[in-house]
């Protein structure tokens, strides 16, 4: 089962290595990982999507909590999950095909971020399903390159994860 885990950490050197090292040596599978600072520049927030049983999840949370730099760990409940990824896709696009791609962008709420004589780059943020559909729609055009962030997530509703 997939779990989305939010972690607040001290923004110290090596903290990401400690966390990824912990996952590696205890055999926990990381699906995706995203890191960024919070409104407090001394604190970073890490979102990890990991695969495992409930026992594994409990162990992950407990072992993460043992790391000195880890301030808070929360596994986000599926029913309240607000999760987003960002994808940039550069596809081959002759000027004549531009209108087709503009249509796709409009339907999928993607943005057109860059255009050249040969290519067009589209940008979409959404959950994993939106992004999968988006990629599917772009497949008929030759994809030059694609880049995708890890998931960032928070819990819906008024409750917040803060220190």
């Amino acid at each position, binding site marked *: 089962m997939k779990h989305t885990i939010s972690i607040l950490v*001290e923004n110290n050197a*090596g903290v990401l*290595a400690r966390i990824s090292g912990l996952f590696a040596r205890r055999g926990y599978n990381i699906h995706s990982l995203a890191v960024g600072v919070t409104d407090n520049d001394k604190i970073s927030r890490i979102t990890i999507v990991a695969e495992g049983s409930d026992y594994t999840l409990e162990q992950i949370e*407990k072992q993460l909590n043992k*790391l000195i730099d*880890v301030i808070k760990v929360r596994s986000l409940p599926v029913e309240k999950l607000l999760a987003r990824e960002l994808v940039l896709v550069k596809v081959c696009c002759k000027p004549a095909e531009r209108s087709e791609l503009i249509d796709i962008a409009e339907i999928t709420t993607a943005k057109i971020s860059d255009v050249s004589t040969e290519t067009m780059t589209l940008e979409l943020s959404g959950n994993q399903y939106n992004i999968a559909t988006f990629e599917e729609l772009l497949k008929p055009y030759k994809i030059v390159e694609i880049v995708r962030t890890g998931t960032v997530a928070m819990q819906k509703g008024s409750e917040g994860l803060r220190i």
Partner: protein
Amino acid sequence: MSQKITVAQALVKCLEAEGISMIFGYPGAAICPFYDSLADSKIKHILVRHEANAGHAANGFARLSGKPAVCVATSGPGATNLITAIATAYMDSIPLVVITGQVSTEQIGRDVFQEADITGAAQPFVKHSYLIKNAEQVPEIVKKAFYIAGTGRPGPVLLDIPYDVQLSLIDFEYPENVEISSYKPCFEGNKLQVKRAAEAIKEAKKPLICAGGGLFTANARELAQSIAETANIPVICTMMGISLMPSDHPLFLGMVGMHGKSVSNRAISECDLLILLGARVGDRAATAIKEREDLKVIHIDIDPAEIGKNLPVNVPVVGDLKAVLTQLSEVIEPKQNEKWNEYLCGLKKQEITNNGSSETGVNPAAFLKDLSELLPEKCVVSADVGQNQIWTANNLKLRGGRFITSGGMGTMGYSVPAAIGAKSAVPEAEVIAICGDGSFQMQSMELATMIQHGIAVKIIIMANNRLGMVREVQANNYNNRLTAVFLDGSPDFVKLAVAYGIKGEYVNSISEAKSALENLLKSDKPYVLQVKVDENEKSIL
């Protein structure tokens, strides 16, 4: 404004402020500024003969002093040699502050001479580590290191300090307290959970305490014993828990696990309530524990991650064992558990140990019986790893004192340096290292350390010219095809000791044991016994 001092000088002042009287180490170029400052201090430095042994010696010192102990090495190979000792301390939750020199900050990452990413390499084995690049932060970080190492579930903390940082000038002020917002070791147990534990003990017909090394860490062995006595609960222990109670205490059954006493394993497989005290249900200890519907488990530990990791738990209590057991002792009710105790007592009496004759040489059980009778109450026995460890664990009878060993990591070459550390912490105690002829040869260089610094550790080498434990595994599981377990080429250990200026004796038959042990115990200097053990002797006698 106060006069500026170097970080190296500040480090020494920090150690003095922490009450450190002795450190174990091995110098090298990158840690020279620290050593230069150490020359101005009263802190005694014990020069070991291999960096790993600095770590093991600090380990022994920490176990006996109950406080974080310090070891030091240089960058590169000095630091990497420490890794086994760091891992050994980590597995047994021993508080160490490990200081390593590092190449200068501007050289880090360029693969210069004696550069090693030690904070990276040691990361899986430390409670925490710092590569200190900001000189001004040194006092605060050292304070944090001692705080982290010694509180909560203790463990090693590594301080990697680049050469140029050691030479930097700073204003020195040692903080009295540190606050780490992300580190809040929990101390007291949840009251409701303690009450539930007391109720479970009241209801149980066949309760059993399984005690681990956490009882020593928390300094809670007397409390645990008095709870066991109040509610008449029989006690078994893990390898790390040996010596928490006098061996002949009527409620004490012995060590549990793969190499434990059969009565302890029977008890753990038949009890209806298992009370784990500072024990992490490691695989070697838990061989006889099976999940059963009629088994209730209370687990008291300071580390929440250990609770439920290897065994489902009904009543988890997170907290410092001393605090929790104090809480528990206030609510626990006296009871008898007569039938259960009588039954176990019967089993204990039936336990047979062959301490008779061996085909050739000395029967280890008989030898340890002699040693047990002669040992003073105030003693430390440091066992190595292998058959010698199991023989000692199961046959040594302690009235008081302390048993130490590398329980989790099973590090060969631990016993002598750990004994050196233990003896340094409690000079008035008789400190004995028991090892095999295999493990002795991983640490024999420390005879020099003992002589140089006048540390009167006594060493007993159970010599069977084999890597006995591996031989046993090969005999049992590999059709007796013995591979790479013969120790031919080993020296005469008594002559080796003499070469270092240490007296030694041979024990070739059990009739020679008593007088040799008396000589060993009488001596106020290091002493070595080479005990001839039959090569086919098994770990469980």
